[in-house]
């Protein structure tokens, strides 16, 4: 079977991002209302210095001070910046300073990164750290690059150093949580966050604690504080957005859809891209008003994941692939964008080669995920490269895999058996997988496995094909599995 994402399982786990992306997304902004833009003015001291004597030093003093005080409308500072740019004696750094003052605040979209980008980044960060090793942000960025390349031990070691150097910082703490989650250590992630004093005052940290505790059934001693923070009016809506989305997701789990809707509504006033994506995933389950999400989307800088999911639900597969490509690039250790896009390419668009291409371009961290590997095997077999697919399937180490993953691979083995003309064996494997999913209480995956079985039966024009197809249509409808309702109609 080809794996797709399970929208109901999604949590607002903090992303493991590099410093530049995190700051571009505004994740490092102050949490208090009114402290974002100081809107200060340059002091008389530097102004008079500049007006009394137009020289390079006074110009630098004035422009630098205008940058600190965020006085970007000062005519004097503007003239001083132009003076620096025109002066042949200006150093390269002075020109940089002046240009920064003169340039606008528009932000470029994050560049699409490849594996090579991360390799180069590692060497750059290492030389950076050679000069100044006490920089926790650089250690965190190094950890991300290592993690992206699948070097888990190096990644966690680098992150441990980052934590030692900056344990009271939001960016470092959230990155550490993301890193430890990636390394399958959710308890270490929550322990790190719980240990920090920020959990009780910073909604970004409180959100991470709630999401991780909820997602991995771990204890959180910050839940009450998190709820209080979510309603604290002195904090900006943006800073509380992710926390409200995390709490809303928790409410859905406990069956309180009304409270979840209220919290999502609040989280969408000025949403982060993570909170927007969460709302997009959950909107069907709780009947969230789409217009709220649309309004929120306008405020989000790059809603890659939210767009991917939206297009996926709407059946706009080409657009979905494009958005997923950007999502995979900026969220470099998350396998979900690769899972969804390889699924869409291979199953929805019937382009197995396209799916293989997507997976080949994924980062090592994404590729090593068993669901991504499963989709690669599925696409290879679908494309006709049966031997290669089976070879990869046999090579997978599933000793520590979760039960649902083992069942997924069993179904894929069934798919391989169908394509190698062993239908009886294939049916048996599929049957075991479906029963296994049902035993786990995962009826959704059981229905998806049944869909792939029905697809093969139809291909063989077997006697069970029609009855099975009806069964699939009914189950897909019952469990409200997006996209499969469209796919099942083709059976």
């Amino acid at each position, binding site marked *: 079977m080809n794996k797709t994402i399970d929208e109901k399982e999604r949590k607002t786990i903090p992303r493991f991002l590099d*410093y*530049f992306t995190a*700051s*571009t997304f*505004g994740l*490092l*902004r*102050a*949490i208090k209302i009114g*402290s*974002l*833009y*100081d809107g200060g003015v340059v*002091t*008389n*001291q*530097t102004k*008079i*210095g500049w007006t*009394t004597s137009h*020289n*390079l*030093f006074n110009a*630098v*003093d004035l422009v*630098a*001070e205008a*940058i*600190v*005080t*965020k006085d*970007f409308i000062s005519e004097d500072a503007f003239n001083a910046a132009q003076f620096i740019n025109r002066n042949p*004696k*200006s*150093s*390269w*750094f*002075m020109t*940089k*300073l002046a240009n*920064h003052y003169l340039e606008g*605040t528009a*932000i470029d979209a994050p560049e699409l990164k490849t594996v090579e980008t991360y390799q180069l980044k590692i060497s750059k960060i290492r030389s*950076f*750290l050679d*000069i*100044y090793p*006490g*920089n*926790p*942000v*650089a250690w965190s960025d190094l950890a991300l690059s290592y993690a992206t390349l699948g070097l888990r031990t190096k990644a966690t070691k680098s992150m441990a150093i980052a934590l030692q*150097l*900056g344990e*009271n*910082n*939001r*960016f*470092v703490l959230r990155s550490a949580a993301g890193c430890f989650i990636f390394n399958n250590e959710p308890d270490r992630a929550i322990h790190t966050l719980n240990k920090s004093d*920020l959990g009780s005052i910073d909604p970004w940290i409180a959100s991470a604690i709630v999401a991780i505790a909820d997602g991995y059934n771990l204890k959180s001693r910050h839940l009450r504080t998190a709820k209080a923070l979510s309603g604290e009016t002195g904090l900006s809506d943006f800073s509380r957005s992710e926390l409200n989305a995390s709490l809303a997701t928790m409410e859905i789990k406990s069956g309180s859809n009304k409270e979840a809707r209220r919290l999502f509504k609040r989280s969408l006033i000025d949403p982060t891209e993570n909170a927007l994506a969460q709302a997009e995933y959950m909107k069907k389950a709780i009947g969230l008003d789409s217009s709220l999400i649309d309004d929120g989307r306008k405020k989000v800088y790059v809603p890659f994941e939210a767009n991917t999911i939206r297009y996926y639900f709407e059946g706009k597969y080409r657009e979905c692939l494009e958005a997923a490509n950007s999502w995979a690039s900026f969220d470099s250790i998350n396998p979900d964008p690769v899972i969804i896009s390889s699924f869409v390419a291979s199953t929805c668009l019937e382009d197995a080669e396209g799916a293989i291409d997507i997976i080949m371009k994924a980062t090592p961290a994404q590729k090593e995920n068993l669901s991504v590997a499963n989709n690669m095997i599925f696409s290879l077999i679908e494309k006709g490269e049966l031997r290669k697919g089976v070879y990869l399937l046999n090579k997978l180490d599933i000793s520590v895999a979760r039960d649902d993953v083992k069942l997924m691979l069993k179904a894929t083995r069934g798919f391989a058996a169908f394509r190698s003309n062993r239908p009886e064996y294939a049916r048996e494997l599929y049957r075991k997988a479906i029963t296994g999913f049902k035993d786990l209480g995962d009826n959704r995956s059981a229905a998806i496995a049944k869909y792939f079985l029905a697809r093969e039966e139809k291909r063989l024009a077997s006697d069970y094909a029609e009855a099975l197809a009806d069964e699939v249509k009914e189950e897909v409808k019952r469990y409200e599995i997006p996209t499969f309702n469209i796919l099942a109609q083709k059976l």
Partner: protein
Amino acid sequence: MTNDKLRPAELLLGAKLDGGWVVTSKISKSSVDSRYLSVCYRVERKDDKKKAFLKVLDYTLAMEQPDPSKALHELTEAFDAEREILSQCKGSRLHRVAFSIADGTFNVEGFGVFGKVSYLIFDSADGDIRKQKELWQDLDLAWCLRSLHQSAVGLMELHGLGIAHQDLKPSKILVFNDSGCKVSDLERASHKYVEASEKGNFKLSIGYMAPEQWYGWHFKNDHTDRFMSDIYQLGSLIFFFFIGCSATQAIDMKLSKNNAKSFTKVNFEEDLPYIKQAFGEVLFDLKKRLDELDPRQSDEILELAAELCEPDPRLRGDKKVLAYVHVPRYDLQRYVSRFNILARRAELRLI
């Protein structure tokens, strides 16, 4: 605005002061970055034609403030504090600190009790390091390193007397053609054993403050904080010489750039990683520049810059000093030697 002619401090041209000093010309009006308002003149001693610099306290400006008695109190207190510190320096053998050569009061006729003005006379310099740098077509590495060495000596001499300068910046490093560079202007200095009236509340130059000073963060309640910020400002001079702006200005620019012009200071400890990241980027840029200038010495200069301007004051300074229990963290002796070696090497290469 009060007419300048109504201010006694503005009317000293031609006046004869104690010690044979005659006021020859006015340099500028009250400097706004001063802790107190003063008027500056050039003076000349009649007998030996020695030229000097005169700073006159302007009391009348205090009268224009909303709370004149408070302003007058602050003004006189700041002036007295500087005079006190300068008199201490005078009694010690300081080679690299420009201190006053005379002080006193002068009565300007026609103003009654307000006619009395206090003044300080300083050695007249040939400019400051900014002026010197402006004269060059290409950077003179040996001169820069020697200037850094001399500034370090000046600061060490002050620290030796228990005085923290607190406002060391390029305009405060005076250049004397015959004797090199000297640390000057002790307006904002404070003494270790004298309770300062303002616990660092006076306005520091934004572009030159140490990062902890942006936040008003103190890691020790004694005078150590102030000495540590002096060390930072000494290191900042390296950035001034080689990249053209202070470490603080460079860090601020990087912070602003990294945060799309919207970086907001929250609290020192939480923001420290971002400041360190910005500092790392600045060091990277500095290294590029130093490699162009002298790749053989670039690593050592960079190390000095990294140690002196470390954004975290708890880690600032020479790490080897930590091993000595009786040597304070802000001790500059090792830096003086290191700057001296670097300067000497650069000078030898010129021969």
